[in-house]
């Protein structure tokens, strides 16, 4: 086992594994900012913010049921991602404690979403037989943490894109809590990666619905 204490994690180079999951992810996922980039707009100024804020329009009409089914599969993928990372044996000490903690929280998210679906009478889809994580994503600690970042970005972007149009109040209350946790998990992974400061975005980035689906596929969610 390679003990990866947080102090070591902070010092670890993070660029080496970007060629793995992240490249594929960013190549295939048309992020919400793509249209802005095409228009020559970058950064996080008001124009970008407003355009980001419009991502919710792509979820309008899809319904709470569709959202639930998608985030259930995403949460299952996220839970599995952390489980596999823990199982690699790369991590020890506080890094392992953190990863096991995050894994456990996503297990609770899966349970919470499933219960909500059952209460709402929404069909609970079967868990995919296998998630197709990017090749090499579990080859070393750095590659794995990059995958975690990518997965968290999909989770955050999906929740943030859909939250403005969720209609059911109970579901909305649940989703904003899950979303909040997920943003924190994104930050926690940044801490493990040595990103300083780890809270490196002034605004979370929303994904449009088609972009979220594409991005989820890029990090391992099988196409229906």
């Amino acid at each position, binding site marked *: 086992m390679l003990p990866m204490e947080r102090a070591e994690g902070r010092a670890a180079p993070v660029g080496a594994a970007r060629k793995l999951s992240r490249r594929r992810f960013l190549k295939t996922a048309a992020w919400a900012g793509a249209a802005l980039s095409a228009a020559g707009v970058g950064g996080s100024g008001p124009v970008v913010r*407003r355009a*980001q804020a419009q991502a919710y329009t792509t979820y309008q009409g899809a319904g709470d049921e569709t959202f639930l089914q998608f985030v259930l599969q995403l949460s299952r993928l996220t839970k599995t991602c952390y489980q596999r990372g823990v199982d690699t044996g790369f991590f020890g000490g506080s890094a392992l404690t953190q990863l096991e903690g995050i894994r456990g929280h996503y297990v609770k998210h899966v349970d919470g979403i499933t219960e909500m679906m059952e209460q709402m009478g929404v069909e609970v889809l079967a868990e995919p037989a296998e998630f197709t994580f990017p090749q090499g994503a579990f080859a070393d600690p750095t590659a794995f943490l990059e995958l975690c970042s990518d997965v968290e970005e999909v989770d955050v972007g999906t929740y*943030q894109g859909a939250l403005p149009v969720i209609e059911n109040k109970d579901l909305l209350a649940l989703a904003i809590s899950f979303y909040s946790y997920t943003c*924190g998990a994104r930050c926690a992974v940044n801490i493990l990666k040595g990103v300083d400061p*780890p809270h490196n975005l002034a605004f979370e980035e929303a994904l449009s619905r088609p972009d979220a689906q594409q991005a989820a596929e890029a990090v391992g969610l099988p196409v229906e």
Partner: protein
Amino acid sequence: MREPEMKEYPVRSRRFVLPRTRRDFFKALAASGAAGGLAVLGHGALAQDGGEDAQRENEVAQEGDSDIKVANFALALEFLEQDFYGKALEADVLTGRARSYLQRAEDQENQHVVALTDVIQQYGGTLAEKPQFAYPQGTFSSQASVVGQAQRLEAVTTGAYIGAVPEIQDPGVRSTPVSIAGVEDEHEVAVNDLMGAVLPDDVAFPEGLTRDEVLTAVAPYLGLSSLTDTGGPPPDGQYRRSRR
């Protein structure tokens, strides 16, 4: 699709020392001269007289809160954080990671103020004025006390957003507070890391706070140095996330 039954999910435990009664609490606030800050936070009526009639009036008003009022409520909290981080950095007691973490947080809170201001104006609302804030003695005297206060403020703000977002009806208004809510949770995690938490993101279901709980928590920053008659401010560390 069936409507879901009401169900309680396990939530982050943020224990607040609540006032004995709502009336006592708001009477004390009104007497303290914190009415301006309370008005910003949407409790202007109670701040004026703190009576039962006003309380009932306020409860009715709460039910009919417009999206803009909720956005202004969020703006007031952002003003507080902006003010706090600005003073913390001016105090020049921060070094290393603590300084870089809080410097970034201040920059982000500034952007949140601008974003919420934009939304409120875009939807034709009237902007709340920035209140005058006060801080417990010694808040800015050491890095440890600054980071401790930051932890408390971020926990309150995160809980406030989680509690307030479901009140917002219009998706166009809701989207900005949603985006900010996640960043506030990140701030909480980052500050927990500064405090040495092994698992800084340690609760699967962060809990939302009611408006009264938020008001109770921020009252000391509105000029109330003591809330002993109303339950008192939460002791240090009480806002830390509990492990589940």
